[in-house]
């Protein structure tokens, strides 16, 4: 596969390490009510769609960016690639 890195352009996926669903960005608040349940759902449950999937890849043999790649799990077509940091900020994460 080829991942079109937003900074570096097209790179072979072999340079990257895959983590999983981009929902792993949405780490719950440890002090929220029902934090234990929230952490369970966060860490263990997955939509696992057959189709578009937003997922985390790490450019380990590159610039060490974490990327959010939107990829079709049936065709492997890649529809979008973003810096995970931008996605995290857009989802309201900060410090």
């Amino acid at each position, binding site marked *: *596969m080829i991942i079109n890195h937003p900074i570096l352009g097209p790179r072979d*996926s*072999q340079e990257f*390490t*895959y*983590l*999983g*669903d981009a929902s792993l960005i949405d780490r719950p608040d440890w002090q929220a009510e029902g934090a234990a*349940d929230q952490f*369970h*759902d966060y*860490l*263990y*449950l*997955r*939509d*696992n*769609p*057959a189709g578009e*999937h937003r*997922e985390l890849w790490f450019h380990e043999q590159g610039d060490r960016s974490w990327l959010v790649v939107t*990829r079709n*799990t*049936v*065709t*492997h077509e890649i529809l979008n690639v973003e810096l995970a940091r931008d996605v995290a900020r857009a989802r309201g994460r900060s410090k």
Partner: protein
Amino acid sequence: MRYSGLKVIKEALTGHKGWRPTWRDPEPKKSYDVVIIGGGGHGLATAYYLAKNHGITNVAVIEKGWIGGGNVGRNTTIIRSNYLLDGNEPFYELSLKLWEGLEQDFNYNAMVSQRGILNLVHTDAQRDAARRRGNAMILNGSDAELLDAEGVRAMYPFLNFNDARFPIKGGLLHRRGGTVRHDAVAWGYARGADLRGVDIIQNCEVTGFRIENGKCLGVETTKGFIGANKVASCVAGSSSRVMEKAGMRLPIESHVLQAFVSEGLKPVLDGVVTFGAGHFYVSQSDKGGLVFGGDLDMYNSYAQRGNLPVVEDVMEGGMALMPMLGRVRMLRSWGGIMDMSMDGSPFIDKTHIDGLYFNGGWCYGGFKATPASGWCYAHLLATDTPHKVATAYRLDRFRRGCMIDEKGQGAQPNLH
């Protein structure tokens, strides 16, 4: 009709006119006691044991395509009970014992062949881990032997003992492990279930569940609604896709695992060898092809195919271990979709929906589990209590903090 050598001879002499369909192709009835979704190895085994062990024969197995077309039709045929943890080893040992009597039981030669599995050890830490595992296996009634390098060399002198990057220091040998003719498992269970009255319905896709007041009443299919007292999902690889129709999210990701076979060769190796320092394991089929595999492609996928990097990685492992394979050719590669669970272990459980049951999360180990999975799932469906060797395979185990993590990799499915 009973299969036997005598029957084969008789048919040969009378023009093979007496062979009948291995299973029927009935139209679905309006309702059943149990509807099993998925005509793979586990689904068919479940139907077989429901009928045979529990006398429940008003059962349908519903298959989207053709039976045996999932992972029972695309694995590397290995059976073994060399697990480490309490939650797993008794289950896989039951499975191995069932394999040992399976062919006589369902009267179909699945070529169960216990030619031994050797897991190679390359470091002292691996030997310590192998010793712990071997002892766990023996304590659970399985078999294991710890070999040193010379013991390995005596078995397989052609492994790379000369210029290996990771020298072979020994291995854990599991003599009762081996291989099985995988397609025959599906067909044998199908035939056995069919003979006992189970309806196997091919080319029938489940499109939804009918759930009212928290109770599952049956399934909507491409052949219409089929009612059921109990609906049993058994579609590893597609578990999330099917259970999503019941509104469930699972602790599972779908990943592709590639497997390979070489051109046919005169005998090269007798048993199964697993390389402990690369991603490679290999056996030789009765037909002569080397059947081998390695690691997942690592990314979520529902496409039954993989990519080059893993092919290269696996075959590099092959050459590292067996340098005489240089001119042997890989004939065919294929991919299967794995239900990779969050701790590498499976589920056989009720769901929170009354009458809806779940079996899945088999990772890349579902084939060897087929008999015990069917046996235990049938037990659960018939009695509504988990079988004693499958008590750990609960869906809520992560909530409770009771993971069954053989590899110690945590909640990252592609690492199991």
